[in-house]
């Protein structure tokens, strides 16, 4: 799965988060910031991370979640790194 396909899957997850305006999801790129660009309440980040784990069938380390940045690139990197470890 390449990075673009991962982003597509992440967007599908974001569409289920009702506190995110779906109109903002049309042009999500690696540079998109969940909080600054999508106005995602910071409390939703853990919900998104948990849904990502389920969708990609992976399990993040607590430390990695603690250190996770707020850009789409950060979570794509973490998904790839976690998959490589497993």
């Amino acid at each position: 799965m390449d990075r673009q396909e991962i982003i597509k899957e992440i967007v599908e997850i974001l569409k289920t988060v009702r506190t995110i305006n779906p109109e903002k999801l049309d042009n999500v790129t690696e540079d998109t910031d969940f909080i600054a660009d999508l106005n995602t309440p910071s409390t939703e980040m853990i919900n998104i991370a948990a849904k990502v784990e389920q969708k990609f069938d992976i399990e993040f380390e607590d430390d990695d979640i603690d250190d996770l940045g707020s850009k789409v690139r950060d979570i794509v990197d973490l998904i790839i790194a976690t998959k490589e470890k497993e």
Partner: protein
Amino acid sequence: MQVSGRKVAVVGMGGVFPTCSNLAEFKEKLFANESLLREWDKATAHGKNIRSTVAGFVTEAEMDLEIIPSSIMENYPETYIDKLNRISANNLATADVGSIWAMISTLDAIKMAGWSTEETESEQTGVVIGSGGGGHEILRAAWHNFFELKKKSRLAGSHNVDRAMVYRDAANVSCLIKNKGVCESIGSACATGLGNIGYAYRLIKFGLQDRVIAGGVEGTSIETFLGFDSMQVLSRGFSPEKSSRPFDINRNGFVCAFGGGIVALEEYDLAKARGAKILAVIDEYFNNSDGDGDMFAPSFAGQQRLWKGLLANTTKRPDVVKVHGTSTPAGDAIELLSVVDALGETGYHVSAPKSQFGHMLGAAGSVEFIASVLMLENQAVLPCLNSDELSENLEGFQNSEQWNGPKKPLSVFRDLIPQQSFQKEINTITCLNYGFGGTNSAIMISKDY
């Protein structure tokens, strides 16, 4: 301390009531002597494991809400959709079903009150709303997934605390209306609804706030129901509309119910100055404790002191006493005798709205307060349904040497207890509610002149 000259007006109301889509339908059904109680499918689904199956409940669909189930947690509501767009997705994300009801009811109450955005968002506007139970539905699913299914704690996400904490209803309402005054929750079991209104009254009367959104909410929850079912204190053996029967000789327990009642209170002169419709004026509020060390049993002495405190600074006497009247064997008898002890045997009527919509626990006091304001508005007394036969014998406790109350059986007071709604001139009503822990609350409201 009370500030001389400050009075408190009720200027808005909103609520969630079983089988009713709004306050107008609630009013219509109450004065038509209807029962809002039903057989509950969520209870009957448990067969013989559950003792009672009648309740006053409200479903998500009846409130035009839809549950969005979590895709990663079993039986966990991730959030709700408000099909009528009353509440935004951001506010819904932090709310359990009771908090959503509190928010919807608050919007209705503020609309009726006619408060401007500036008034609503003021430092002089407070929110005081409570609930009898915790966010049981939310917690049950979260704990089941963690403890039984061995899922990671993070799967419950960020809204396990905000949707289950003790003052979630007040917190959600405050975040919705953006008031800058106090935001708190009073908990006093089945007196919670009235306790929050009483506390809000004091905030205004003591000069601490000019406006307060106040009340109680009890979101539909089979988990809450189970607690009382296991105590064997719920009514059983009657058809739903006959199940709640305060004062009747065959009463055998209360009917557990869910709902919400929110009122908008405002300092009287401010409300008058802006031309608000005054629904009622709160004359007095008094609350106390039994002080006898008993968690559950009603106390005649405690209720005597309650009445003494309520009437200490007023010459007014109520035309109607809206009783707690749960339909439990012990509670109703003590309560009626304490009312008679305080007010005598004539000159008022006793109304028991739990006979129509059951016992809404933390919401009981506020929903019954709203029912009382409706009695003032309609100039009609709400009935005590199913009070078909009153005991002609003295209660056991009336024969004890320590008993210092009326020594007459309940049947002597038949004329005080209407079985159907009827019109009469009503200027003043007293509302009574009590709760586990021996807590007692009483409020007196009057028509505005």
